[in-house]
């Protein structure tokens, strides 16, 4: 008996035991639906994290930070190191073949004034790569250029919230403001940056608002006018392609190690950060997994029991089949395929239910979800696996029945 016929026979058998099939299927349907829901929620969460990081500057980014020694006493090399400096940033730009952008940052809170208004405001010293690296399009005017940096130009680019604070509706470009009393010409305004996390805790807080509350000046001007040295608060670099990220990590490490003489820095990719974040989220998913596992397991146990019961009911049938030429293997396959037909149809229904659940979670709970073909495949695979695992024992039992005993059975 070939497999296709077994499937057909299994389907017909199921159709002729509708009550039994429904009971058997419930667990599998719920289990498969849970798997779809779990994976979609997980994927949705992951995707949102990815989108968030993408909005923050994409996956080609590497963040370089100062790594502070855990030892109480610093080594001589550590003491000698100047930490991350603007010169490091320039060296990386010169020497790393895989680098696309280099975005050094020095942040100060300074007195900024326009007309009658004076505020203590965040001022970021940076260079032409900043909007590019941090995915910050310019709304009006222009950003800082290489020329601005070379000339220590007194030019300022404004975040949209600060622009409103100082100018309101008034045109700002071309006007002059003062920073710590020094006049700066306004050359551009950034586009507003926003990102809202969906779901329970997310509410309607713009988690990227801090980007909008900043002024931007050439980093060289910052160093010359407002700071005592060129130590950086942050350094973000990006690779030419996502594939080049490992190479750039390597190159940046090499350049910095040579310049510092000690590994007092840390080069971390955005994808590392995403992975860490997803690992944190994985914990919450354990609960979902437990639900899916329990439903599938219960569904499987129900199937095994119903099949065992149906074997008792069908002992004679098995005897007859063997008498007319079925081998133990034929009987084994028949019963296993019947289990598979039940669980696979349960799996198919479960996927439909799961999609419904996902749509509902998305709408009602406003949680991020994402359904991919892979998720559906995994869910279906789970239902089939349950069929194989829990159909195995009943199938073996059926196959082992002695035909004479089976025919004698009343």
């Amino acid at each position, binding site marked *: *008996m*070939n497999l296709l*016929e077994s499937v057909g026979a299994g389907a*017909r*058998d199921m159709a*002729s035991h509708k009550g039994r099939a429904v009971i058997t299927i419930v667990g599998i349907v719920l289990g498969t639906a849970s798997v779809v829901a779990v994976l979609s929620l997980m994927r949705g969460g992951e995707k949102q994290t990815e989108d968030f990081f993408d909005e923050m500057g994409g996956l080609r980014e590497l963040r370089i930070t100062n790594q502070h020694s855990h030892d109480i006493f610093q080594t001589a090399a550590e003491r000698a190191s100047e930490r991350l400096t603007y010169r490091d940033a320039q060296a990386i730009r010169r020497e790393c073949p895989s680098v696309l952008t280099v975005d050094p940052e020095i942040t100060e809170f300074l007195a900024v004034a326009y007309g009658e208004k004076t505020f203590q405001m965040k001022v970021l010293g940076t260079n032409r790569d900043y909007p590019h690296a941090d995915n910050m399009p310019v709304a009006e005017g222009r950003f800082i250029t290489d020329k601005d940096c070379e000339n220590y130009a007194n030019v300022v680019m404004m975040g949209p919230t600060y622009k409103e604070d100082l100018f309101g509706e008034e045109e700002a470009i071309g006007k002059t403001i003062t920073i710590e009393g020094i006049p700066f010409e306004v050359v551009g305004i950034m586009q507003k940056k926003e990102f809202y996390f969906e779901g329970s805790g997310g509410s309607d807080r713009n988690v990227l608002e801090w980007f909008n509350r900043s002024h931007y000046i050439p980093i060289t001007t910052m160093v010359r006018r407002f700071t005592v040295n060129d130590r950086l608060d942050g350094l973000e670099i990006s690779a030419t392609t996502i594939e080049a990220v490992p190479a750039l990590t390597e190159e940046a490490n090499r350049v910095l190690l040579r310049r510092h003489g000690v590994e007092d820095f840390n080069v971390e990719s955005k994808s590392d950060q995403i992975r860490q974040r997803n690992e944190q989220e994985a914990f919450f998913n354990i609960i979902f997994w437990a639900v899916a596992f329990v439903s599938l397991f219960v569904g499987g146990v129900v199937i095994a029991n119903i099949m065992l019961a149906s074997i008792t009911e069908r002992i*004679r*049938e098995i*005897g*007859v*089949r*063997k*008498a*007319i*030429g*079925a*081998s*133990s*293997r*034929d009987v084994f396959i028949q019963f296993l395929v019947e289990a598979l037909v039940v669980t696979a149809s349960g799996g198919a229904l479960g996927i439909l239910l799961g999609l419904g659940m996902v749509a509902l979670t998305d709408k009602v709970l406003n949680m991020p979800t994402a359904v991919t073909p892979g998720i559906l495949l995994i869910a279906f695979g789970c239902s089939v696996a349950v069929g194989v695992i829990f159909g195995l024992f009943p199938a073996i039992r059926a196959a082992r029945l002695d*035909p*004479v005993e089976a*025919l004698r059975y009343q």
Partner: protein
Amino acid sequence: MLIRTEDLTKTYDLGEVEVRALRGVTFGIEEGEYVAIMGPSGSGKSTLMHILGCLDTPSTGRYFLNGTEVSDLHGRALARVRNKEIGFVFQNFNLLPRVDLVANVALPLVYLGGMNRSDRRKQAEGALDSVGLGHRLKHRPNELSGGERQRASIARALVNEPSILLADEPTGNLDQKTGREIMAILDELSGAGKTVIIVTHDSNVASHARRTVEIEDGAIAREGRA
């Protein structure tokens, strides 16, 4: 010789006691013979029948079917012999209740393999037609009388064109008139050259056969020819 047995025994070990259902059966059956196996209840008729039908294997002794020794075979090989060489007719019909007659009769062809579904159904319909059930193809067993069910089970036994037809009390669950109809079919098959072996208590039934083998207490007690 189609069937030859040498000193077949069958012992059931029930722990405390041993039941010796067969105590050494040696006999032979030629192709085309029409044999009735008779004997009191519990004498071992069904046990012998199951061994001859390759449903069971003897505890000791040898069994040759069509010249090959089948007492050595197990599992799939034995299933294969049952499928191709043996047609069973049971006292209680043993049709599958949830499928129609065509599907019931086509079942041995499914296990034979190598035929597509429509060919199998065609052949099953032919077999049903030959036992006078051409008008009942789509019926399920519970929609039929006992006689019709037994005719369907004969059709199933014949569909693979086996060399032997084995019938264990084929009229045991039927009234006399229906029983005679069934016997008429078996007579006809025998007349057409099929080897037919029936197990029966009923001497009227046995009288249809041309040879009777009487079993008592697990061994052949008497033989007779009509």
